[in-house]
């Protein structure tokens, strides 16, 4: 089993619903984004447009972050998902420097509220208990939802259905079928990390 994702750039409208769904499901504290949409401006007025590219942890098959982690806090599970065990993390950040995809975030203080000048809300307070200070965190393909046969939050929420999720090892899965038909590419493939997130061309 190797979970993977396809992001169809031709479908992505850059609405950031994935970003919000990720934050809402995982309760990531302020300034911590596991799922992001990078936006590039192209051309000049009146021939200008924005080009969105969603990124998240690529759950690399040959994950440099796992190799670089001195304590084994970063590890890959049997389903190909790369996790951080927050209790084991010493906050050395070597995994962040080893990751070419900006997928890991360090939390250097107490979680802050999203509402300026306000204390954290009760919901935030409950959600923040999952995050400890001084450690690195990252996307885990919503492993808790997968256990309940639900799709990752970003996939389930995407209004343009630009995200397809499944088992890359199963030739019958939707992701595998699409990748046979259309050639997907991985970001920074020359780094040799073998990402599990594929992109279909615009």
């Amino acid at each position: 089993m190797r979970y993977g994702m396809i992001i169809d750039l031709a479908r992505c409208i850059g609405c950031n619903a994935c970003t919000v769904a990720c934050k809402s499901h995982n309760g990531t504290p302020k300034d911590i984004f596991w799922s992001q949409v990078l936006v590039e401006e192209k051309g000049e007025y009146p021939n200008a447009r924005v080009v969105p590219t969603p990124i998240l942890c690529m759950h690399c098959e040959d994950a440099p972050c796992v190799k670089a982690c001195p304590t084994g806090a970063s590890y890959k599970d049997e389903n190909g998902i790369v996790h951080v065990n927050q209790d084991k993390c010493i906050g050395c950040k070597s995994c962040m420097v080893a990751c070419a995809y900006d997928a890991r975030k360090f939390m250097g203080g107490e979680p802050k509220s999203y509402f300026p000048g306000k204390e954290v809300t009760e919901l935030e307070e409950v959600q923040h208990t999952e995050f400890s200070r001084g450690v690195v965190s990252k996307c885990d393909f919503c492993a808790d939802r997968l256990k309940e046969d639900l799709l990752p939050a970003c996939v389930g929420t995407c209004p343009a259905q630009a995200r397809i999720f499944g088992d890359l090892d199963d030739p019958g899965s939707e992701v595998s079928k699409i990748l046979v038909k259309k050639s997907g590419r991985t970001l920074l493939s020359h780094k040799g990390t073998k990402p599990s997130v594929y992109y279909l061309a615009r």
Partner: protein
Amino acid sequence: MSNDSSDRSLSSVITWNKDVKVMPYALFGVVALIVGAVAAIMTLINGHDTMFNLSPEVPWGLLIASYAFFVLTASGLAFIGGIGHAFGNSAYLKINRRIVVMAFAVLLAGFTQIGMELGHPLRLAWYMLVSPNFSAPITWMGVLYSIELLILAFELYLVLKPNPTEKDHRNSAVVGFCAMIFGVLAAATLGFVFGSNTARPFFHGSYFSTFFVVSGITAGAAMLLFVHNLVYWGRVPSSLSKTMSSLGKLMATGIGVMIFLYLWKILATVYTPAADGGYAAIRELLSGSLSTNFWGGEILLAIVLPLFLVLITKAQSMKMLGLAGFIYIVGFFFTKYDFIIAGQVPVGGDDFIGSGINRMADFQAYVPASGEWLIMLLGCGVFFTFYFFAEKILVLEKES
């Protein structure tokens, strides 16, 4: 109560050096230590966010640079001590006690830097013992520098033992030699922490392992030149002039090798900008946000000025050697700082569509926060306190 003879033997190492006027340095050390310790405690209480200016773009900042600065200097000192033992070099053996005390103090200072840089310093020891990941270069770096600290502690004990026997001399030579081997290995492994990184092309490869070792040995020589000038307030006794001159030549040779390393690394990268060899980082150094640091700090302070001072005085003027040493040490710090920061230029380029928007701006926004400088001051405080009190109460010079 000790009897007369043990008093005399102890006084061969422990004393109160009336003529050694190092108290101002030691007191500076104490003040720096206290100020730095307050900053360290505040960091432990408040967390990195309030004290440091790190970001997802630049997760490794000043403290990784200051860590490298201290521990590489310690490696360099251990190397110089090792040459003394390995080749029976009397110029270096003469100051062997000083070298060992200094290497130990500098290494301790380095440990404070990495300790405060970690999000969970206390967990470090536990998890490195129960579940070390041996495929992580940083694990080996930690192991090797810990071993180095133990070796230096043991050497410290041996060289300061009153009435050493012939066996003690032999042992301390063997231990000094081990300190050299492990020091160099640890420095090269620190280089490999970066060299093993495929995400950041500037770091990748064997280059920095070599550069770290060479520039560290040079820093060791520079440190000895500078500190001797401090201890004697610019009047290093003539009995040490051969040693100082030899250190000056070692420093100049080190700088000479560094010139080659710089030149070919830069040329190779600039010549093939498309080859993903860290061109963006080099551009940042040569003409980007780090260019003042690079031309002023690295080229001028780590290369041109110290080399000029040593050559023009033919490594004979003690004062000039001390000054050259001091200038090199400052330059050496820049070499480490620039290296750490430049290497973290956002990865991507064309393949990372959409990356061109804010990531460079976020990267360039990194300026060390005062909290980071204060932790670096803590490191300096550890060194000054430990070393200069040792100068005051220990006999650090011996005849052979």
